[in-house]
């Protein structure tokens, strides 16, 4: 492919107008574990598979869903270490905003700043793009919101979205099942069903992670016991 001659340097466009490194970063995301998010009428739910490399790994030490502020949470598909760096930077930006304005950062502003960080790494020398796509879920004065941020730094607001390995099946499933006035609990059930669709093996409370934010504006990661309850309702 003619493009491969231009894939060595991130900051060089290929003749077809693409930045090949970003395409490769998206491929890295596409081979990561599936994650998805659904925006309901009264909240947002984000979920991901938590497949561990071996049964010897202590699953309580792995936290794929993190909170950025008390009312904003994030999940990723792709490279875990890159995700940790972004979470750290985003948290810092949220706190800097608070220090200046004594007001919690609106979701759109945090998304914009995180996307700007990801974009910086596509235009500087000697760095590589982040190998993660993020799904940021939050609840602020503009209601529940769900955003996806890609390695290129572009961001989109979604009603429901999926990323990672099983993305096309998951998205089709979500398209069929999504309704505008869905309640949050319905959304959680739909999220679990969507994960189940593409899951290789048996889904259980210990190998998926779910984060929710309701109208009380507090982002919570559900405990395995809570996930178990929802799983039983779905069965």
């Amino acid at each position, binding site marked *: 492919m003619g493009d491969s001659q231009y894939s060595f340097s991130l900051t060089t466009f290929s003749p077809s107008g693409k930045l090949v490194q970003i395409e490769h970063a998206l491929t890295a995301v596409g081979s990561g574990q599936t994650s998805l998010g659904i925006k309901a009428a009264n909240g947002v739910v984000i979920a991901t598979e938590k497949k561990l490399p071996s049964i010897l790994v202590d699953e309580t030490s792995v936290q794929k869903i993190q909170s950025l502020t008390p009312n904003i949470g994030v999940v990723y598909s792709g490279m875990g270490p890159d995700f940790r760096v972004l979470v750290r930077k985003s948290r810092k930006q949220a706190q800097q905003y608070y*220090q*200046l*304005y*004594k*007001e919690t950062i*609106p979701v*759109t*502003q945090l998304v*914009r700043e995180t996307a700007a960080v990801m974009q910086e790494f596509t235009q500087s020398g000697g760095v590589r793009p982040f190998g993660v796509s993020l799904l940021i879920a939050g609840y602020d004065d503009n209601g529940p919101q769900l955003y996806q941020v890609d390695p290129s730094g572009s961001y989109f607001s979604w009603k429901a979205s999926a990323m990672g390995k099983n993305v096309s099946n998951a998205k089709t499933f979500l398209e069929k099942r999504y309704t505008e006035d869905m309640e949050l609990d319905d959304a959680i059930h739909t999220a679990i069903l969507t994960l189940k669709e593409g899951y290789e093996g048996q889904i259980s409370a210990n190998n998926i992670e779910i984060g929710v934010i309701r109208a009380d504006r507090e982002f919570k990661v559900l405990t395995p016991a809570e996930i178990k309850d929802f799983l039983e309702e779905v069965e």
Partner: protein
Amino acid sequence: IFEYNGSAVVAMVGKNCFAIASDRRLGVQLQTVATDFQRVFEIHPKLYIGLSGLASDAQTLYQRLVFKHKLYQLREERDMKPETFASLVSAMLYEKRFGPYFCQPIIAGLGQDDVPFICTMDCIGAKELAKDFVVSGTASESLYGACESMYKPNMEPDELFETISQALLSSVDRDCLSGWGGYVLVVTPTEVTERVLKGRMD
């Protein structure tokens, strides 16, 4: 250095409204240089800031604040709330902790649900929220006295205008560095009234 130009600014809270007023003298120590100097500025139709103290710092600080607010409006697609603006001013003033702006701002605005908000701060950003009135400038001591005695809670806009004007004019008469008339702004959720007062022109 706060007494170089002379100034008097006061703000009062009424019933679903607020009023902010200032004197109009600009002096260079004892010499009066202008009698129409503006100390109260609009940030957006429901948020005003009055800056007393050194006039050049007041103008520069105002320009920087307008700059920051305009960027905020573009990014967040909304006006700043008065409480947020007060935090911003406080942060900006403290940035210059060891070489401060010689100004004492008074911030007055209508917040969410049009609840009036006033506050003042010192030149390095120590906020002082008040429910009734705030004062600043060379005439601040007389203003404190005048406001304390004349103020009543929940005044209607017209009564508030009378009260704040009386308080301002009687206080600047006791201060040689401020005066030459007054400028009063009364803000309600539906309208803004500006009035210029004629007092003792000295």
